[in-house]
């Protein structure tokens, strides 16, 4: 694993008001004192900014990320507890308060710099810079599969190790023995030579008097006792008995309910409505016109929804009223052509000279792929509860970005950021959707009109039609093969580039590459969608690789292998997927296999899909998933994320289609935006490769590979090459001639 986290970036141990506080290398200034007031209950001692030791020797770990099913409220405390040699059974988790002091500097640093080795002399400066930077951009974000690989590695482990070091030193002074003679285990420190043993909590006062900076050493993976095991997730018991509180479950005194209809064509304004329109509706209190949307406040959601449906809501005309999906594709293609003609493509990768190769090449292959817009459709529809008073605003919401929400609300309400408090709740699905503060802004603006708290709940229709979408995209390829069937040139053009940076990049050894993109503005709002750009680029690049393999008359797995001679990590993952899926062994009639390989968010994934086409019906029987995340800190949780990401990606590949008609979203609910159900869900097997690399993400990296594994399997059994998703729009038929 990366070297530099083993260097201490704990700089100070600080005493304030009788409590021991350790700052985790934060400069300038020391924030430990301020943070203490936010999280310490009576009788508790804040041991450092990421944990507190309670009087009863239990330990509360402060986690700066939202729980949306990815298990982060368990895995991050595990990382801290292991380094601290704490007793896992007594660990409690507390989500960090939505406060500036928790702007997640570790994540900002991870994103902006990657796991680079920073000279120790610069560490204080670098951390100070990132605290300042992350405060300014309010980065308390849960996304980018980043919790473990950045917050865990940069903050949790170091904090745990620092806490252990300070307690050990306190014990050593208290007992007047060398620290080397002490043993730390299960939240106790013992001195075997004198047969003494005491809990962590008994050393807190002594530790508070230490002023020397801690210099924690992080464990090697051989020393882990908690990391790499799979204890039960801490959030699960409340999710089987109905007691888990999601945003939508918040109940406040005197609270009323609201629902809303925004302009179906994004950006159009609502015409004004007479307040008297609701006078005959019992239990309905108020119409609020938010310009782009009309909301109704009532005694309950159903009353508000009925009232909203009954109101004669009209929206102004907009410039986008006639736009359809084909217009958007036409514009993409036009902008792509213009970029090439004018030579102003945005360059992503440029290696060698594709021009020289294409001039001489005799075997040139071209293909164009498309994917549609996609909505998130989290199971919990968008909602937010707000209470606005003259001097401040409180909101209750499930958010992937609580500080960003607070900032947005402060701006629209013209309040100081300090006066906006976000109470983050469990998220009923995130997938990137809950990074966008739109519903929270609406809730605050609605609640501003009344003197009671308002819970705004979107209908499912609103949720589907007012999303921030994974964009539709077009990807064009041109490649050249030499007589031995090796790729000599790779030209790829698409529209837009967001995250992750590596999404359109190929691991294959191709000397001449030109990967480039063009921006092509539309009026459809864009948002992070599980695995973001990789959700489409793996489909594009891995489908095209399959096409090239076919043109080269080679087995798709062997063809990939031959191009991975300088990429041993990728090769290992690919080989494992092939081996576990019995690649090459005969399948029953009408069955097929497809393989894919893609790296995203630091984790390499290969998948093999095993499918059957009966008549025109597709059945996905089995998906074998091999993944190298460096190290899986909670292997069962990692497997669960691989399973989840595959079902999510398979749903999109088979059914996912948001289309645009008359400027608006055509689909509205689960009847026309279909989800994979249990009977269609394949058997999924996950195999983890442990390598010595910086830990990769878990929440997203399995999503990209499934679409190409599936469509490559379809080609394998039918000869039908699917170049546009979703699969449901294609007629399928197995072809017995190509089997064998």
């Amino acid at each position: 694993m990366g070297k530099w986290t083993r260097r201490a970036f704990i700089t100070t141990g600080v005493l304030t008001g009788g409590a021991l506080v350790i700052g985790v290398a934060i400069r300038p200034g020391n924030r430990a004192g301020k943070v203490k007031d936010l999280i310490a209950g009576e009788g508790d001692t804040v041991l450092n900014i990421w944990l507190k030791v309670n009087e009863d020797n239990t330990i509360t770990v402060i986690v700066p990320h939202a729980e949306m099913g990815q298990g982060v409220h368990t895995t991050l405390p595990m990382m801290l507890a292991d380094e601290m040699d704490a007793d896992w059974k007594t660990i409690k988790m507390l989500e960090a308060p939505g406060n500036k002091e928790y702007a997640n500097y570790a994540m900002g640093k991870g994103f902006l710099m990657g796991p680079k080795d920073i000279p120790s002399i610069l560490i204080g400066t670098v951390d100070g810079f990132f605290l300042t930077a992350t405060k300014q951009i309010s980065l308390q974000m849960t996304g980018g599969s980043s919790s473990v690989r950045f917050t865990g590695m940069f903050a949790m482990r170091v904090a745990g190790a620092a806490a252990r070091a300070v307690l050990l030193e306190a014990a050593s002074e208290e007992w007047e023995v060398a620290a080397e003679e002490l043993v730390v285990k299960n939240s106790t420190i013992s001195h075997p030579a004198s047969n003494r043993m005491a809990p962590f909590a008994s050393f807190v006062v002594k530790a508070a008097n230490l002023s020397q900076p801690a210099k924690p050493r992080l464990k090697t993976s051989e020393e882990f006792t908690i990391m790499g095991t799979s204890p039960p997730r801490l959030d699960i018991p409340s999710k089987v008995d109905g007691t888990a509180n999601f945003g939508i479950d918040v109940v406040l005194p005197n609270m009323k309910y609201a629902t809303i209809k925004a302009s179906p064509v994004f950006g159009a304004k609502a015409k004004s409505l007479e307040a008297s329109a609701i006078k005959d509706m019992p239990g309905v209190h108020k119409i609020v016109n938010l310009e782009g949307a009309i909301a109704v406040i009532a005694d309950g959601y159903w009353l508000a929804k009925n009232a909203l449906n009954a109101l004669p809501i009209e929206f102004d005309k907009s410039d986008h009223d006639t736009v359809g999906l084909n217009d958007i594709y036409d514009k993409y293609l036009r902008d792509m052509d213009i970029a090439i003609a004018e030579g102003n493509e945005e360059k992503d990768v440029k290696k060698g000279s594709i021009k020289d190769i294409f001039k001489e090449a005799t075997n040139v292959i071209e293909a164009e792929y498309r994917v549609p817009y996609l909505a998130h459709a989290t199971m919990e529809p968008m909602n937010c509860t707000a209470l606005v008073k003259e001097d401040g605003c409180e909101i209750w919401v499930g958010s992937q970005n609580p500080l960003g929400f607070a900032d947005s609300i402060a701006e629209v309400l013209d309040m100081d950021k300090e006066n906006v408090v976000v109470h983050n709740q469990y998220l009923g699905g995130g997938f990137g959707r809950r990074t966008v503060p739109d519903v929270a802004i609406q809730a605050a603006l609605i609640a501003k009109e009344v003197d009671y708290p308002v819970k705004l709940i979107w209908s499912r229709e609103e949720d589907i039609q007012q999303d921030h979408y994974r964009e539709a995209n077009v990807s064009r390829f041109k490649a050249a093969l030499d007589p031995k069937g090796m790729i000599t040139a790779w030209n790829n053009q698409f529209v837009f580039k967001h995250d992750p940076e590596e999404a359109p990049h190929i691991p294959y050894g191709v000397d001449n590459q030109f990967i480039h993109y063009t921006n092509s503005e539309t009026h459809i709002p864009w948002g992070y969608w599980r695995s973001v750009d990789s959700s489409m680029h793996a489909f594009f690049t891995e489908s095209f690789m399959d096409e090239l393999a076919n043109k080269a008359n080679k087995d798709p797995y062997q063809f990939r292998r031959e191009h991975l001679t300088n990429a041993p990590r990728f090769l290992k993952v690919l080989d494992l997927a092939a081996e576990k899926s019995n690649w090459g062994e005969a399948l029953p009639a009408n069955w097929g296999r497809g393989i894919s390989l893609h790296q995203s968010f630091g984790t390499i994934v290969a998948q093999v899909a095993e499918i059957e086409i009966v008549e025109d019906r597709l059945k996905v029987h089995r998906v074998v998933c091999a993944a190298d995340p460096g190290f899986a800190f909670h292997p069962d949780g990692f497997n669960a994320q691989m399973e989840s990401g595959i079902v999510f990606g398979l749903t999109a590949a088979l059914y996912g289609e948001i289309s645009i008609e008359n400027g608006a979203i055509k689909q509205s609910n689960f009847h026309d935006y279909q989800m994979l159900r249990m009977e269609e869900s394949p058997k999924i097997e996950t195999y983890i490769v442990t390598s010595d690399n910086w830990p990769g993400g878990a929440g997203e990296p399995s999503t990209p590979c499934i679409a190409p594994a599936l469509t490559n399997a379809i080609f394998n059994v039918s000869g039908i090459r699917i170049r546009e998703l979703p699969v449901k729009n294609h007629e399928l038929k197995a072809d017995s001639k190509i089997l064998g």
Partner: protein
Amino acid sequence: MKLNINNTIHEVDVDPATPLLWVIREQLGLTGTKFGCGIGQCGACTVQLDGLAIRSCLTPIQAAADKEITTIEGISDQDTGLHALQKAWIEEQVPQCGYCQSGQILSAHALLSKTTSPTDEDIDMAMNGNICRCGTYSRIKSGIKLAAEELRNTSTIKILNNGEVD
């Protein structure tokens, strides 16, 4: 109107056309039952009426009067704690975001009350109305099988809600 929810009689004063879901959540504060789609497509709002799994977002309360309504808050056993399904859900570490799981458990509960040894096909059929966006389907299936086994191994005498022995 009177509603019998989890063996407790509640008096509610709302429009009889109001969907049961909103009465359960907003009037009675039983928030374990979730709103997902409002059109009976996702199963997040699943509760039981006289032991049958139904979609409470589409069921007006007038159709639930005089019936026994069971929600996620009512399936655990006062003496032995969690229901076998809930224990199995923890054992298999089923939930991720957890939002759909009340509905999943209520559908599974209705299945196991009729079928003590469900096949894969039985489970698919009973659970097909419940969407899980986190894709926990395979773990749900394992959870149902584990709970079925547990229930088969425990007492065969069932005490009904009204105290009669089945």
